């Protein structure tokens, strides 16, 4: 039963992507959505994911802004005659602990200015992040913890 609501959303997306709102097509999308969700049903077990649309929207808005800024900075860096690089990999201590949160945070970090997630430690306590400018890892850590990590916690818990 828990799968039905996401499957309805999937059916809408399916209708939009295939470009046809005919009932048969929507039903097909619904069934495909159910099948896809059934395949990953085990990851739904014991979920305590809250759903806060407004907070998710805020997260998405922050993300789009950071992505634009990030692409701009890489572009400026690449186009400058002397590239001022101080690259390095630093460990970021994770507060979030669930798979979906870590995945989301890693993806967001990769698409934000100057940082790229490389790996999660085996005990899932650290995220290793590559930074184009690693001269001040303390400040970068604080930016991530106060920015994306907090927003993720607000949106999903």
């Amino acid at each position, binding site marked *: 039963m828990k799968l039905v609501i996401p499957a309805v959303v999937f059916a809408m997306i399916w209708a939009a992507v295939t470009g046809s709102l005919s009932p048969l097509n929507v039903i097909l999308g619904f069934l495909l959505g159910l099948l896809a969700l059934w395949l990953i049903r085990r990851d739904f077990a014991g979920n305590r994911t809250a759903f806060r649309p407004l907070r998710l929207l805020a997260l998405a808005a922050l993300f789009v802004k950071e*992505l634009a800024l990030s*692409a701009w900075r890489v572009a400026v*860096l*690449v186009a400058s005659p002397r590239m001022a690089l101080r690259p390095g990999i630093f460990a970021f201590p994770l507060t979030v602990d669930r798979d979906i949160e870590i995945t989301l945070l890693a993806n967001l970090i*990769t*698409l934000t200015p*100057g940082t790229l997630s*490389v790996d999660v430690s085996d005990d899932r306590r650290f995220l290793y992040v590559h930074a184009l400018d690693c*001269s001040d890892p303390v400040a970068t850590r604080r930016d991530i913890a106060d920015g994306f990590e907090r927003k993720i916690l607000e949106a999903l818990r």
Partner: protein
Amino acid sequence: MDILLALVVAVLLVVGGLFALLAAIGIVRLPDVYTRMHAASKAGTVGSSLMLVAAGLHSGEFATFARAFAGVVFFILTAPVAAHLVAKAAHQAGYRLSRGAVCDDMRDKAKN
């Protein structure tokens, strides 16, 4: 109205193309695989996304625009994963950071 739409499409195409070009230049100019992934994952994603949106707007049909938009969403979902996996594989294979690198917590941890 048509002219306005055409202008928006043109601007999106040119800016998107510029970002894609700069991503390509970045892959040539940056010193190691990790810094190159920055260029490929960020500037590349934004460049392709802008051009996809331009294509969707130009078609003037909702169905085409929805598909282009879905393409953008999938780009944003997959590009970081690809960059992350390439960087992770490179690090596991022992590929070092370039000489200007200032810190590597991951290597330090592996030693302990």
